[in-house]
């Protein structure tokens, strides 16, 4: 069953044009005028049509195909210096005007317990503008049969290579969004995302052991072209590792076959000896570590305490930043980015009508900036939003979300094999696995999909039961080297959760394979 607000539809419905900029402008003006008449000093309206399709298979059969549509509008206002928000699926002039009036009512009611009035960074109106994700093939236009055939072919590859079970799925998203505000912006956007994925399980009945390996695909801000593999997008892991990473296209069949081989190998792999190791982390894995230990702690709403009751706060407070302590080693240059083509976070304008950009968060190991939106910029003495405001749908209020946060590749030429060559006692980890971090983002523990021992500069075999624990600052200060741009690629997440009620957003993290020295590795095998 769909969640509320999402409606299951005939797949053909996903291709019907519904959003019309001229109609939306008229509707938006009705909302903005109603808000102003009711006493709002600022208002914005988001008319959104959110389309999703998910295909699910296991082994030789289709489990489910669900196409959903969610259409409605959310109106956000400032009245008496306080935010108010209301949403409606009655997308008519009357429906939007009513929502605007409700939003003003809520704002006025809450203004009684408001301490300081909301202060917005100035934002010029852009007039009527538009942005479209530069995709080559709309995944919704691809016949369902072709998509099912691809998933079943990947399952067949996994089964041929020794998988006991395989589940695969393809998720596709199209956000058709129209934003307007009393600043004079009317912004029409068309956003696409895609995520092919699978999980392979190998069961050894005799020993009672089972091992899994998940796909090494990245969810991307691309169309169906992501699923046409291109040789130039494949990046080999270190010699002896049987790992292939993927850039802007993904070979699902090749990865499914590798996953089955590797899951089988994991059954008999050596259980790791706990201790300090130099870690060589592939981008698919490192993306999650960046996400948790850099992306989240630098969200300004967390830093200020707005997420204290749920997601938590941050060690990287304004005071901590002033002290000038190093976040990482000199090798660590981390950029926030809402422009990178093919990334999940790329849009033309954010959900409060701010044109998107790139900016540095960490320069040569030093924290230089946070991730912020219009009502936060003044708190850190700035007068410009970073353009990273987002809402998961028309019916949820927009708030500060993580932009793409990426580790810049090394400027010197450095291949993965060259990186591994100098490691005396280490572990190469590919793929993201188990992840957990405290509410201020100090202490974390990460697993992975596959682990290989490195001894005297060479991969010597597969390991199992590996997880590493570290402190964010110690970890990033132990960063020794990162490979060059030829190894750079994205990891991504479709469902990053934050807020109450919780909202999810999609975000990418780019990096090249990177080495961290002397990290604490634990053995996770337990007998029950």
């Amino acid at each position, binding site marked *: 069953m769909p969640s509320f607000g999402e409606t299951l539809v005939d797949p053909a419905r996903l291709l019907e044009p519904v959003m019309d900029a001229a109609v939306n402008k008229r509707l938006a003006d009705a909302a903005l005028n109603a808000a102003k008449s009711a006493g709002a000093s600022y208002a914005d309206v988001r008319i959104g049509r959110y389309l999703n399709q998910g295909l699910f298979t296991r082994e030789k059969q289709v489990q489910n195909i669900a196409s959903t549509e969610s259409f409605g509008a959310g109106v956000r206002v400032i009245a008496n210096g306080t935010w108010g*928000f209301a949403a409606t699926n009655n997308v008519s002039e009357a429906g939007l005007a009513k929502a605007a009036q409700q939003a003003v009512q809520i704002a006025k009611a809450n203004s009684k317990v408001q301490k300081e009035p909301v202060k917005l960074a100035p934002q010029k109106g852009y007039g009527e503008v538009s942005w479209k994700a530069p995709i080559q093939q709309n995944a919704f236009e691809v016949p369902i049969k072709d998509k099912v055939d691809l998933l079943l072919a990947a399952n067949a590859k996994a089964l041929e290579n020794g998988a006991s079970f395989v589940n695969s799925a393809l998720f596709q998203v199209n956000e058709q969004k129209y934003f307007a505000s009393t600043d004079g912006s009317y912004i029409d956007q068309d956003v696409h995302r895609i995520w092919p994925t699978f999980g392979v399980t190998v069961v050894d009945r005799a020993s009672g052991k089972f091992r899994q390996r998940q796909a090494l695909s990245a969810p991307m801000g691309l169309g169906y072209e992501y699923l046409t593999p291109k040789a130039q997008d494949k990046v080999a892991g270190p010699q002896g590792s049987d790992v292939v990473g993927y850039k802007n296209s993904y070979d699902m069949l090749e990865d499914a076959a590798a996953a089955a081989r590797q899951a089988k190998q994991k059954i008999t792999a050596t259980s790791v000896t706990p201790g300090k190791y130099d870690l060589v982390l592939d981008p698919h894995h490192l993306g999650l570590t960046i996400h948790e230990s850099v992306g989240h702690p630098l969200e300004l709403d967390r830093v200020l305490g707005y997420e204290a009751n749920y997601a938590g706060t941050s060690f990287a407070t304004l005071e901590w930043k002033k002290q000038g302590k190093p976040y990482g080693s000199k090798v660590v240059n981390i950029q926030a980015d809402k422009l990178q083509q093919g990334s999940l976070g790329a849009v033309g304008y954010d959900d409060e009508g701010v044109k998107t950009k790139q900016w540095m968060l960490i320069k040569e190991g030093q924290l230089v900036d946070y991730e912020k939106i219009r009502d936060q910029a003044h708190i850190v003495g700035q007068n410009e939003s970073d353009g990273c405001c987002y809402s998961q749908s028309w019916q949820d209020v927009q708030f500060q979300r993580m932009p793409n946060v990426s580790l810049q590749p090394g400027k010197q030429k450095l291949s993965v094999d060259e990186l591994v060559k100098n490691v005396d006692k280490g572990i190469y980890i590919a793929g993201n696995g188990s992840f957990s971090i405290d*509410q201020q983002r100090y202490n974390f523990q990460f697993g992975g999909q596959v682990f290989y021992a490195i001894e005297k500069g060479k991969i010597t075999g597969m390991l199992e039961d590996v997880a590493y624990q570290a402190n964010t600052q110690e970890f990033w200060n132990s960063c020794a080297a990162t490979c060059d741009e030829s190894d750079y690629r994205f990891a991504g997440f479709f469902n990053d959760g934050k807020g109450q009620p919780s909202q999810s957003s999609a975000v990418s993290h780019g990096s090249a394979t990177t080495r961290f020295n002397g990290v604490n590795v634990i053995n996770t095998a337990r007998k029950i």
Partner: protein
Amino acid sequence: MMLSKDEAQTILKKVMSFTTADECEANLNGTTRGNVRYARNTVSTAGNTDNVSLAVQCWFGKRSGVATCNQFDDATLRRCVQRAEEIARLAPEDPEYMPRLGPQQYLTAPSFAQSTAGITPDFRAKAAGDSIALCQEKKLTAAGYLEDGSSFAAIRNSKGLEAYQQFTNLDFSVTVRTPDGTGSGYAVADYTDIGKFDAQALTQRAATKAAASVAAKAIEPGKYTVILEPAALVSDEGLINRLVWAFDAREADEGRSFLSKKGGGTRTGEKMFDPRVSIYIDPTNPQAPGGTFDNEGLPVKKLPIIEKGVVKNLYYSRYWAQKSKAQPTGFTGNFVMEGGTQSIEELIKSTQKGILVTRLWYIRDVDPQSLLVTGLTRDGTFYIENGKIKHPIKNMRFNESPVIMLNNVEAVGRAQRLGGNLVPPLKIRDFTFTSLSDAI
């Protein structure tokens, strides 16, 4: 939007009259929800949502299609049924197809309270205001969230199955911190009937923990006796939830579960836990009422999952039950863990050396083979010595399996409602902490 049983079934009967499919099933769900969120001692966001949605599923043989709508005039309903039928005709055959259920008998659960259904924006604003005022007075900082809602679920199918249930709930949580960020406390509660809800009392509990957790000392990670409060056992991602949700029969039969037996089969009937551990499903529990049917209309009945430490029942989908010659299990997510008589204070009193844990956070699977999970303590962690809280301690990361944990039971306290479940505080020996965290 709330519809009465008659209003809902009138719509559903019409749907059935419009279909020409071999089988048809329609689910009508409605909800009215409101929330208020605050932080830094001020309200940050508030909202209302109101929705009702009909999903119609039609079958031709083993092919099915679903369509939905949120308007209920005859023309819209007819279109919705026709669309479901069109999609069904084009769908692939489902090899796991099961025919619709016929009429069923359902238990009655006290899952709806008029007092909760009547909550207004002013009620929410007052709760937030009371919580903030208490913290301002004590020079502490509150961040909290209140969400309430009324909802209904109605089903009807072409084999004559008919089901309807109403629900209400209120969820409240608050984190109180000292202004310098050196102390943090937490309280959480949820209700079907808001009669006992007291935002100030809950905030007071969090405030006391915040003040008491200042100047925490580091202790060496390792194995400790712990008293885990219900909020450390049950949450969206909690230790006990994870255990209860992992009782799937198919995964166990397929050899990919901690309940799979070496060589094949499942561990049903084995004593895998301490004899004081009993967990069961019971939608009629007056303190933690739940859904009495699942979304296919399968009745949810009282069913032991673990009885006196023995694995009693796994969950069977209708398909897997038929294949395994077992009974299908209706399960809507909430459970009851049997408790004892001791309060948390009494559990502390009987502890020579140990750790009181208010809340566990960011719990994630590490190894599905052993159900090993990791996570951290948060918002109030205290060292106990000779039956008394000695001092606050710094937070720590744990790596532990709920299976191992429920073999190391020292004492079971009085069960409390949390997250729609009933769960007791537990005293556990040899709980494994693996590293220190600087987080407060």
